[in-house]
C-alpha cells in the first residue's frame, strides 16, 4: 500500500520537474491552470464547508454566545478553563475513553474472528457475509429505537433470552453502570459487519504460498495464524483501528436515541457533550471549546498512530 503510494508520489514529482518551464515559475503556465482547474473546485468546497467552519469554531470557542443574541461576548480562554475544572467534562472524557477502547477493541477482535470463520469454505458463506454486513447499512437512529426495546428489562428480547439461563436482566438503560455497556453492545453489533468485511478482504489477499511454506516448515494452525495471518493483516488492522477510533469518537446517533447521554451523564461522550452544550444548553462557546478538544484529540491519535505504524506495521 505505502510502497505503491511512494512510487506514485515519486512519479508525479518527476513529471513536474520535467514539465516545469525553464526560467522560473509562471503562474499562467499550463500546469498551474490545470492545477487550479482540478484542485480549485475541491479546495473551494473544502474551504467553505470544512476549513472555514473550523476557523470559525476556534473563534467561537473564545466567546460567550447563546446562538440567538446578536451580541457575542469575547471571554478569552474562559470556556477552556470551565471545561478544565468541570467535573462533568472530566466524566465525559472518561466515558469517551471507555466507549472508544471497548467498542474498538471488541469490534476488532470479533470482526477478525467472524472474518476467519467466513473465510472458510462453508455452505451459505455468501449469505452469511451479507447478514453480517447488513446492520452496518442501517441508520443508527433506527437501530437505537429497536435496541431500546430489546434492552427493556421486563419485556425485552434480551431479558427473555437471559431468562432461559435464569439470569435476571439488568435495567440496562436506567442504571449508570449498565447504560454504557448497552451502548457499546449496540455499537459493536452495528459495526461488526464493517470490520468483518475489511478483515475478510485482507485475509483473501494473503498469498497461499506463505501458508504452504509455513506448513513445510512444520508450523501448526496456531503458528500459521501467529506468524503469517497476523503480520500480513497488520496494515488492515491498522486501517481499522484508525477508522474505528475516529468513528467511535463521532458516534452520536445511537447515544442520542437510546440514552440522551444519561442516566447521570453515564453515556455522555465528547461528541454528545458538544451537542448538548450547543443545542440543549445553548452555550455555543463552550460547545466550540469542547469541539476543539475533540479535534485536538483526534488529531493526536492520528499522529501517534501514523508514527507507530511506520515502525510496526508490516506492509505486504
Amino acid at each position, binding site marked *: 500500500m505505502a510502497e505503491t503510494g511512494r512510487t506514485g508520489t515519486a512519479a508525479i514529482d518527476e513529471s513536474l520537474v520535467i514539465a516545469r518551464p525553464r526560467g522560473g515559475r509562471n503562474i499562467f503556465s499550463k500546469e498551474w491552470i490545470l492545477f487550479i482547474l482540478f484542485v480549485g473546485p475541491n479546495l473551494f468546497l473544502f474551504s467553505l464547508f470544512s476549513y472555514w467552519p473550523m476557523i470559525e469554531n476556534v473563534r467561537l470557542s473564545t466567546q460567550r454566545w447563546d*446562538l440567538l443574541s446578536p451580541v457575542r461576548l469575547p471571554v478569552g480562554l474562559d470556556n477552556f478553563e470551565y471545561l478544565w475544572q468541570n467535573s462533568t467534562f472530566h466524566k465525559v472524557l472518561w466515558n469517551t475513553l471507555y466507549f472508544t477502547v471497548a467498542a474498538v477493541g471488541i469490534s476488532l477482535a470479533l470482526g477478525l474472528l467472524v472474518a476467519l470463520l467466513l473465510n472458510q469454505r462453508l455452505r451459505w458463506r455468501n449469505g452469511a457475509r451479507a447478514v453480517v454486513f447488513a446492520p452496518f447499512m442501517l441508520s443508527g437512529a433506527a437501530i437505537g429505537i429497536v435496541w431500546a426495546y430489546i434492552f427493556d428489562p421486563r*419485556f425485552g428480547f434480551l431479558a427473555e433470552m437471559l431468562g432461559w439461563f435464569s439470569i435476571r436482566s439488568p435495567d440496562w438503560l*436506567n442504571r449508570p453502570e449498565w447504560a454504557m455497556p448497552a451502548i457499546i453492545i449496540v455499537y459493536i453489533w452495528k459495526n461488526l459487519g464493517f470490520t468483518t468485511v475489511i478483515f475478510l478482504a485482507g485475509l483473501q489477499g494473503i498469498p497461499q504460498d506463505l501458508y504452504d511454506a509455513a506448513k513445510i516448515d512444520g508450523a501448526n494452525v496456531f503458528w500459521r495464524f501467529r506468524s503469517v495471518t497476523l503480520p500480513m493483516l497488520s496494515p488492515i488492522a491498522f486501517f481499522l483501528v484508525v477508522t474505528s477510533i475516529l468513528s467511535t469518537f463521532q458516534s452520536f446517533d445511537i447515544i442520542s436515541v437510546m*440514552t440522551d447521554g*444519561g442516566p447521570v451523564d453515564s453515556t455522555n461522550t465528547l461528541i454528545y457533550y458538544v451537542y448538548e452544550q450547543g443545542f440543549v444548553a445553548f452555550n455555543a462557546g463552550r460547545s466550540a471549546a469542547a469541539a476543539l478538544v475533540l479535534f485536538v484529540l483526534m488529531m493526536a491519535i492520528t499522529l501517534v498512530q501514523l508514527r507507530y505504524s511506520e515502525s510496526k506495521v508490516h506492509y505486504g
Partner: protein
Amino acid sequence: MTTTKINRRSIVKGAAGAGAAAAIGSKASSVFSAPAVIQSGPLEVTYWTSFEGGANGDAQDELVKRFNESQSDIQINHEFQGSYEETAQALTAAVQGGSTPDMSLLSDVWWFKFYLSQLLQPLDDYIAAGNVDSADYVDSLWNEGVRQGAQYWVPFARSTPLFYYNADALNEAGLDASIFQNWDTIVENADALMVKDGDQTTQFAFGHPNAASYIAWLFQGVIWQFNGEYSDPDFTINIDEDAGIEAGNFYRDSVENGWAGATEDHVADFNTGLFASIMASTGSMGGIRENATFEWATAFLPEKYTFGCCTGGSGLSILASADDANKEAAFEFIKFSTSVESTSYWAQQSGYMPVRKSAIDSEEMQAFYDENPNARTAVDQLPQTEPQDSARVFIPNGDQIIGGGLEQVTVSGADAADAFAEVAGILEEEAQPILEQLEALEG
C-alpha cells in the same frame, strides 16, 4: 355561535381586518370593499408544532384541518419539529439561517429565551383588533405570557402535574385513595403497593422520570410542598436551602428504600403496571386513557407540609420576523385554536387544560367532566396552581440543570445537600447573562 368567513382582503389590508375572523364566537366585522394585493390561492402560514401522532398529535391535526376548512384565505401548514426541546433547537437554527416559521409552539421554558432575544412579536394590537376577550382566558395562564405589559405567548397546550394511580393495584392492596393525600401516608402504605417476584420488584408504589422527561418540572410542586423553592423571582437560588434538601432526600430515600423506581419513560411504565402511581402532566392523560390496561384514576398532588403544584405546557407565539400579513393570519389561527370550541375539543382529546374560563364552565365540558371524573380533577386543581420558579423557566437549560441534580439523587443515591449545592452553583452562574440581558431589555 356563528362562523364568519374570512375575507382574504381583510387579511392583507390591515390589523383591523383581523376582526373578520374565523374564530368561533366572535362577531362578524366589517368587510372591506377596497381592493388589496391580489393573491392567487390562500395565504400560506407556517406553524411549527411539537405534537404528532397519538392522542395529542391527532387532536393537533384536527384543529389545523378545522381551521383550514373554516375559511379559504389562510392555509396553515403545520410542521412537526420534535419535542419541545427539539422545536426550540430547530427555531434557533432557523433564526441563524434566516428562515423562521411564522408561528411556533413554545414550551414554558423556551418562549422566554426567544423573547429575550427580541424574536417574538408583541400581540396586543392583534388582540385588540381581533376583539379577543382576554379576560376569559384563565388568568394565571394568560399572565405567564406577559412581559412589560405586552403579550408574547398565548396559552394553548397548558398543563399541570397531576397524580395518577392504578386503581386496580390500590384495590388489591386493600387501600383507598385517601393515602395519596399526603406523602407520609404514601410512605406508610408503600409496602402494600409493592409486588415482588423473588427479589425483583415487578410493581413499585411510585415512579420517577429522568431529567429528559421533566423530573425538574414534577419536582417543582414537591419542593413547594416541603416549603422550599428553586429560586425567588429575583433569581436568588434557594434549591440548596434546608427545605429543598429535605425534599431532595425524600426523593433519594424513595428509591433507596425500594418503594419507588426511576426510569426513562415513567408514563409508559405506569401504563404497563410497573408503577402503581406517578406524577405526570395532565397532557399525558389522553395517552394513558388509550394505553393503560387497568382501571386508573387521578388525584391532586400529595401534600407534605403544604400543597404545591405548578403550571406548565406550551403556548403559541408569532415570530417578529414574519411578514405583516402572515402575522395577522397566524394570529387568526391562535385565536381559533384557543377559542372556546377549540380549547374544549383539545382539552377533551389530550388532557391539557381548557385555557378559557367559559370553556371550563360550558355545558359541553361539564358533561365531559361528569363522564370523565379524572379530567375534572385537573380542572379542580387548577385554581391552586402557581407559575414556576424563575430558575427553571427563565434560566436557559435550568430545567436540565435541576433535572441533572435530581437524577444524581434518584439514580445514583447522592445526598441532596451535595447534588443541590452543585446545581445551585451552576444556576447562579447561568443566571448572570440572563440578568444582564433582562436589565438591558426591561431596565
